[in-house]
């Protein structure tokens, strides 16, 4: 039972005094944000409505000590739908600022910098949508060097920095390259040649699918069920996490095509990952064209949490496009 002496008016005032927290009390708990929230699908304990409601009651301890206040990735999908016009991610930020002052910190996971590998090249500082990384002088093995440092209170564990780091100095548990490779290659899937070598009648495709671009449970189940010898689906935390090296590896192993599915422009869960995913695929397409490899074999496609059956449509389109390459490449029929 929560008693009224746990309802601290000063906590409410403190949150409302923070920039972004002004509208805390106009929330009437309609639950639109809670039902919209994509984070919730992976983290059922996260409920923005509940956090705002608890904060509005002044339950200081319960709010500040919870792990959930760090889980909002500020994707702002809920904000345009809030009937009270509350910028919920800003309220979360206000609450976090109060928490940081009170000595709390984010529970993680947080991107980790390998100090021995990091050269302080600053690439990661540019890609982080949350500006959570800076270069800072640190003493490593008796030497003062300026290397990357991640602010764990801002890091949303999106993995974009892990992809961006050109020297492999950034890591994030469960999202490292080794893990992605394992998923790609499991069951020897990469060891078969494909349609373009005349070894298969159906094009073999690899699909990197952003976990936020498909929303409904039944959609995911349907997509997972499509995995077979001609299709391998690898889930990414963000389409911006896609590694061109992995795409090239797949192509070099005889995979006929690689589909990268991400969110619509401007709708990225981590604010700009989809833009970066597109950038990588676009640049890779340019290089493929220079090298004489057909561009249609690597494509970026969009989907959103509001759409269904997009994946199957795009897959079918890619298959058709590759099948149509047969005459041009003079592939012997089998």
């Amino acid at each position: 039972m929560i008693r009224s002496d746990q309802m601290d008016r000063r906590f409410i005032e403190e949150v409302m005094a923070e920039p972004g927290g002004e509208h805390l009390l106009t929330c009437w708990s309609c639950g639109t944000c809670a039902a919209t929230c994509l984070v919730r699908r992976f983290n059922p304990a996260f409920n923005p409505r509940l956090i705002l409601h608890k904060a509005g009651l002044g339950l200081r301890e319960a709010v500040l000590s919870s792990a959930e206040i760090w889980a909002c990735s500020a994707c702002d999908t809920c904000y345009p739908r809030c009937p009270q016009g509350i910028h919920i991610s800003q309220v979360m930020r206000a609450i976090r600022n109060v928490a940081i002052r009170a000595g709390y910190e984010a529970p993680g996971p947080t991107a980790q910098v390998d100090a021995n590998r990091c050269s302080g090249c600053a690439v990661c500082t540019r890609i982080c949508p949350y500006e959570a990384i800076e270069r800072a002088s640190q003493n490593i093995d008796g030497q003062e060097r300026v290397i990357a440092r991640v602010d764990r209170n801002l890091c949303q564990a999106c993995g974009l920095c892990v992809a961006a780091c050109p020297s492999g100095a950034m890591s994030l548990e469960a999202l490292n390259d080794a893990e992605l490779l394992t998923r790609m290659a499991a069951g020897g899937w990469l060891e078969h040649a494909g349609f373009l070598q005349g070894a298969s009648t159906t094009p073999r495709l690899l699909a990197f699918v952003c976990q936020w671009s498909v929303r409904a449970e039944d959609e995911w189940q349907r997509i997972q069920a499509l995995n077979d010898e001609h299709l391998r689906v690898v889930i990414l935390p963000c389409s911006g996490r896609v590694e061109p090296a992995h795409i090239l590896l797949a192509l070099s192993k005889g995979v006929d095509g690689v589909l990268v599915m991400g969110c619509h422009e401007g709708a990225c869960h981590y604010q700009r990952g989809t833009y970066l995913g597109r950038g990588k695929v676009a640049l890779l397409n340019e290089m493929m064209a220079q090298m004489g490899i057909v561009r249609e074999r690597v494509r970026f496609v969009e989907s959103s949490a509001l759409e269904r059956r997009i994946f199957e449509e795009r897959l079918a389109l890619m298959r058709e496009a590759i099948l149509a390459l047969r005459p041009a490449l003079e592939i012997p029929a089998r």
Partner: protein
Amino acid sequence: MVDAARHPQITIKAYSEVERVDGYIGNFRALVTQKPRYVIEERCTGCGECAPVCPIEVPNPFEMNIAPRKAIDVPHGQAVPLIYAIDMDYCIKCYQCVTACGERDAIDFLQEPRTEEIEVGAIIVATGAAHFNPSVIPEYGYGRYPNVITAMELERLANSSGPTVGRLIRPSDGQVPKSLAFIQCVGSRDKRFNEYCSGYCCMASIKNAILLKQEHPEMEISIFYMDIRSPSKGYEEFYNRARAMGIRFIRGRPAQITEDPQTGNLFIEVEDQDLGQVLEVEVDMAVLATALIPQPDTQQLATTLTLARSPSGFFMEYHPKLRPIDAPTDGIFFAGTAQGPKDIPASVAQGSAAAARAARVLNAETWEIEPVIAHVNPELCISAQGKKCGLCAMACPYNAITVEVGRPALIIPAKCHGCGGCVAECPQNAITQDHFTDAQIVAQMREYLREKPEEKILVLMCHWCSYGGADNAGVSHFQYPPDSRGIRVMCSARMDQDLVLEAFRRGAGMVLVSGCHPQDCHYISGQQVAARRFERLFRTLERLGINPERFRVEWISAAEGEKYARVITEMSQKLASFDKEALRRENEAARKAIMQRLLRWRSLPDMAAVFAEEEEEKEVALE
């Protein structure tokens, strides 16, 4: 309606527009134009033989555009009068209808609009409301997913005189839905669109749910709501009945609706708050309970009838509690959703009330009007001298003043509500207000500022809000220093610049003018007139050498006693921070320039008596 049509003292002018309304309570003159039906009213029997042969189908707003009607048609089968009309935008003049009409010969393609002037004593505005279009909410999919419809569309689909003869089918495949969802508060209670609650949709959706459930007991019906508003007689009991019938109520506002393109089914994602979990509910059809919004031509009608609009856009009543049926313009009354969203019992009650209020007017020989009205002095009005002015008319919220070049401005006493805006705006000081003349106000000022004026704050406050606010401060025991002296006028619009300057001329330490908040002004737009005026006054004071910090403008409502006390306290502190000797010198230095400005005003006959007592020397040469 039929009774009304038959009543000997009621004339129904259907298919008509009110172009203009002149006059005042008890004596309105309305210019009404009847649009051409291209059907001769006296000859049309409403037999309906023309419509079936017409080859042109047009959108049918009565059927919510679900089904068409013909280019010659009636709005619906119970229309009063039951006279057909041709939509000339679509008619191709094939003459099929003429043939069908036969001997009745009721069709006349050459019919012209007819205008007539009607004299009426009272006007009731019952123009209704429109419906919010939910296609501006992309996450609900209206307009993209065929099986997402609005509540009004459902009304037509479930109605036995509707396009599907009462069989509820879903648009995508014509099947009877096995499951249905109602989504409440679509466009209502939403800061992005309309902040108000539309008031009728909870009950309407429950009603529809019960009707459908009775007809299709196995249909799964869910209602997604934030609150169920069932305040009136029998409403809560009705709601409980719906629950008992097995209609599912889920408290949660749906975040989005997605569609499975292969089945046409809809998936509603919502947090069930009582459960604390997100549900994904698959339904065959979704019904959006959309908001009531003002009619698109509300502004046009407001201009024609001199009506004001509330912030929500509906017509504004004289007072929301004490006179909810009356418009601020005397003799005009409201009934129904034109004045604000409400349900049928409330609309009917308002209709009776409006009739009663109008009857008072019609049965009266004479009508009592405001005593504090304004008068134009024809000798001073420059319009009478052939010059173009009209500032008074522009300031009047009630269109009570007519100005013609060559004649003095004419104030219609029955329309004047006594805000005093015209009095203050007139640059010739040609207008006076009964019981609130400049002389009377200056006389009060003279007494207040007789001794040690530089230690005093002179306050000009409007009667309805700020005076009430000051009173509220007193009654509520909000403490404030005793430096202020208040003069009451009816409206901040009355507060002439000259009065403020006069106060400074008399040596006042500080001056506060205070009125209503913009949306609260008793005289609709008086406060706005005042606000513009006082913005200019700051610059004037600077040029005169008066520190603009000595002048303050505040909008304080009758409930804001605390604010009044706070403002006076702040001003008092500020006043205390000024060196009094410096203030006196500042006033002295500005006096000559102020005198120059006030010269004409001071020379008015009414003002002479006030200034007679003073020993002002003739420092300024008269022109």
